[in-house]
């Protein structure tokens, strides 16, 4: 089991610039055997945490993307119908055919079943759990406390290893108290200027420290405007890549380029209209 400082170093080495609390959360996940629930606005890097965690543990990342109407057959297991039909046709008249077609051979693993049957504990990312409905949430809660799966035709399948479970939520639906209580909670906020500067430096080879700092300050200013879609970290990196690609060394030297490239940050017509060249100038005045 890795300690907190070790985890912090491993996160940094894997390219994820975390705030101090996250390493604590990850060490607690191991110690208390609880899933980690990450909440926060879209684009703050929740999914990245799971990817970094897989790197830290040097293990596989299994992802289950939730959506409205997600049911057990897409999340847990499914039978291979085509093969079953062929087998039934081929063995017509045989008595034992029913036992045969409902055996492991015809079982298709979906993410949740795969996650508990790996020889090395994987990271299981359950993305946007709030998009699934209550019934699925209840089923998931059961799985997260028992770590075994009942398949009517096969019986109960216990877990070979217990995965490291990360759930993310954008808050489109209120999650149940039971699920929240079961998990460790971590709120992922937009990074502050210092952290965002370090993220740009870590992810973008061509960005100088001074330009990265200017970009981070500019983005912070843009986020404070009344926007419909606040830019996330991914947008910051897109914009930084665009500026580096256009050979901008200092934002104040290229106000027009800065304003034109703001399309990387502003994703709706209203937001684009709100940030006029004058607003861009005002924000540029603060990046020095």
């Amino acid at each position, binding site marked *: 089991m890795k300690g*907190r400082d070790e985890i912090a170093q491993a996160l940094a080495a894997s390219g994820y610039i975390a705030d*101090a*609390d996250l390493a*604590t*959360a990850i060490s*607690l996940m191991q*110690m*208390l*055997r*609880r899933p*980690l629930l990450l*909440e926060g606005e879209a684009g703050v890097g929740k999914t990245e945490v799971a990817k970094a965690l897989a790197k830290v543990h040097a293990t596989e990342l299994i992802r289950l993307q939730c959506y*409205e*109407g997600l049911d057990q*057959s897409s999340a847990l297991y*499914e*039978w291979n*119908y085509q093969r*079953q*039909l062929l087998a*039934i*046709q081929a063995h*017509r008249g045989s008595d034992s*055919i*029913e036992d045969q*077609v409902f055996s492991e051979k015809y079982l298709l693993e979906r993410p949740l079943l795969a996650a508990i049957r790996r020889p090395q504990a994987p990271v299981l990312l359950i993305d946007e759990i709030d998009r699934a*409905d*209550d019934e699925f949430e209840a089923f998931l809660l059961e799985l997260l*406390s*028992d*770590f075994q799966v009942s398949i009517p035709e096969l019986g109960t399948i216990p*877990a070979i290893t*217990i995965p490291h479970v990360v759930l993310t939520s*954008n*808050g*489109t*639906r*209120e999650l149940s*108290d039971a699920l*929240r*209580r079961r*998990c*460790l*909670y*971590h*709120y992922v906020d937009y990074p502050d200027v210092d952290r965002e500067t370090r993220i740009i430096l870590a992810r973008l080879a061509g960005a100088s420290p001074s330009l990265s700092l200017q970009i981070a300050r500019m983005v912070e200013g843009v986020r404070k405007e009344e926007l419909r879609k606040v830019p996330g970290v991914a947008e910051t990196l897109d914009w930084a890549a665009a500026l580096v690609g256009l050979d901008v060394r200092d934002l104040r030297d290229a106000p027009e380029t800065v304003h034109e490239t703001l399309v990387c940050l502003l994703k709706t017509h209203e937001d684009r209209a709100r940030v006029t060249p004058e607003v861009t100038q005002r924000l540029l005045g603060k990046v020095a």
Partner: protein
Amino acid sequence: MSCCGSSPDYDDLNEVSRFVSARLAAFLRTLRDAGFRVGLAEGQDAATLISVGYAAKPGLLRAAFKHLLSARKSDWDKFDGLFDAFWLGKRVRSRSRTIGSTPGASNPSLKSLQDKSAEQGGGQPVTDQLPSSDDVPEGRSGEGRMEGASRAENLAEVDFRKLSDPDQVTQAHEAAAQLARAMRTRLTRRDLARRRGYRLDLRRTIHRNISHGGVPISLVKRQRKDKPLRLIVLLDASGSMSMYTSVFLRFIHGVLDQFREAEAFLFHTRLAYVSDAMKESDASRALDRLSIMAQGAGGGTRIGESLQTFNRWHASRVIHSRSCVMIVSDGYETGDAALLGREMAALHRRCRRIVWLNPMMAWEGYAPEARGIKAALPHVDLYAPANSLQSLRALEPYLAKL
């Protein structure tokens, strides 16, 4: 703890000194009082953390407890202050659950709210229109059938303002809660009647047709999953609405209790999220908590600003594709009417239906002259009176169509 793997034993607690475990229990109580939902398993894990040496580093302990004991953003934001106040003796910040409202020196209970509304009830008691409480048949089923509403038949047409006798007020409350129950049940039946599976359920089809040699003769359809209708109620709790507030609170409590998906907010000068308080199963306790929140700051009604808060912080969480927003207000806006218009337009882009209930609408000679209501009406799908049980009941067929 029903956790997989090894769960911490009570033996761990023995390692923690008695003093610390008593302090820990007190801290968990403090958190529960502040609205945290902390279970037994979390308490055991917290004790484990102390016993394995986290207590030696207050900063680390705080971070660990924060992850373990918080369950939502509001907990997360409050936690550091509560932890510092309890363990490090720093000054505690006020933790009012109402967003931005100034906690008044007096927190009158709902009873006094009711009494006040009875006093203001137009001055002339209308007992001649009302049955005495003896006329009410004893023994109600209360299981969400329409009998509940039929009990209230005589009360149905009386304006809530004119309820003066405390017994009648109680009856009106009961009837409002029953009505909410009845609406819920009928909607569900309709929802079920509308469900027709249309996709094949291959797993069951194959199972069923093994005896036919795998030829899919009898098909099994997958049931369509319908999203339950979600009601979001925004109740104006300003002074001009005070005569109606208590009955509506009761109605909302009933709705929240009965609808699988419902959320409630109060607003006067600010907006307050009250679903959690409303989820108290004991109605009178819930209403007592709410009546405290319903105290306006005495600065008129800022519907526009409240809606702005709602759109900005709550809408994405509580509104989905089958949502109906119900605003109960007289539309007397003391803030910026243009802002109200803009925010209503934004809200209308998000949700399926906006119902605006205005208790004043049924008053003789009332016309929607107030600036606020004028700005809001273009974005409202249904504008209806809500001054009596009958007018509330008239909403049910409309909601069923959503």
